[in-house]
């Protein structure tokens, strides 16, 4: 995939959402469904990999960029990830406290809620590609429960899942 197109598609995903993982449905729609340059399995892997590193959750886009177009793709994805952040400077200059205006807050709230709904639907194909039996279902359900019910760091969930996978197969 052409780097400019990669950048623009990822920028579209980051510019139209309000949190790191909210861009997932747009990324899936463009890269998995429309352009077919990524599989659901690779997208799941990108999400998992980004949770193994510190930093913002949106870093999964860098993994997507790398899978689609190598190191240059990772660079383009990185730029797409950080570009919208600089809009806050314009907001600080021109909007100031108007950002707390009820309509601005209502719109943000509604878009965030819709993003939650979209993420829930994006989960369906991701789960189909990564859950294929009782073991993977248990790993997925346990990860979900641990993340919603405790404040344990995600990286430990990833480490525990990898350890469970290794234990099931037998260590190398």
């Amino acid at each position, binding site marked *: 995939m052409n780097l400019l197109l990669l950048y623009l598609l990822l920028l579209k995903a980051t510019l*139209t959402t*309000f*949190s*790191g*993982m909210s861009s*997932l449905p747009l990324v899936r729609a463009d890269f998995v469904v429309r352009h077919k340059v990524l599989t659901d399995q690779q997208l*799941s*892997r990108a*999400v*998992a*990999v980004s*949770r193994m*590193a*510190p930093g*913002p*959750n*949106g870093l*999964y886009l*860098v*993994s997507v960029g790398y*899978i689609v177009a190598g*190191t240059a793709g*990772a660079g383009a994805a990185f730029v797409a*990830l*950080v570009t*919208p*952040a*600089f809009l806050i*400077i314009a*907001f*600080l200059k021109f909007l100031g*406290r108007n*950002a*707390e205006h*009820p309509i*601005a807050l*209502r*719109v943000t*709230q*509604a*878009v965030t*809620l*819709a993003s*939650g*709904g*979209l*993420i829930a639907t994006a989960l369906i194909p991701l*789960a189909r590609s*990564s859950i294929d039996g009782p*073991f*993977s*279902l248990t*790993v*997925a359900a346990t*990860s*979900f429960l641990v*993340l919603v019910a405790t404040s344990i760091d995600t990286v430990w969930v990833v480490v525990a899942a*990898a350890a469970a*996978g290794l234990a099931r*197969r037998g260590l190398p």
Partner: protein
Amino acid sequence: MARIRLTEIAAVFLRAGNLTFGGGDPTMAVLQRELVNRRKWLTAEQYGLIYGLARVTPGTNVLAFYAGSAWLLRGLKAAAVAVLSICLPSAAMVVWLTYSLERWGSIGWVKAASEAIMAAAAGMVAASAWLLITPFFRKAGPVKTLAIAGGAAALAIAGVTPIPVLALAALAGCLWKGPPPA
């Protein structure tokens, strides 16, 4: 207050962004302690304003928070330094991990670990949706929460692409009467 050096800004943001796991909120909490309480580079009001604006800035909120707070400290250069300090090392690590899994993912034991990690990722995505939606049952009420999140999910299942769904949600947010969000 003495002019803050870019290297000092880079050091603070580098440490907060790359030694804190768990996404944006823990990192912003670390930065609040560093910038407001410890170093007194920002007032609590400035922190609150940047936090509020970061919530309405598209993209990853925490990145907007870094850019905004560093911009208040020393302008555009500082904003760029902060965002790069906080993201570049983590991004390099993500690239290395992705490369490793792509390169060695077919080896038996790597594959076993990788498949379990991907199952965990499905749980993470479910948790992400859950944690994004459930606070709104209290903040916006169950009717609005279910109508917007459920409506978006229903439209997506019906085949509507995400951009129109998000645009409709924004319109619904504009028109929906009720108390201002908490």
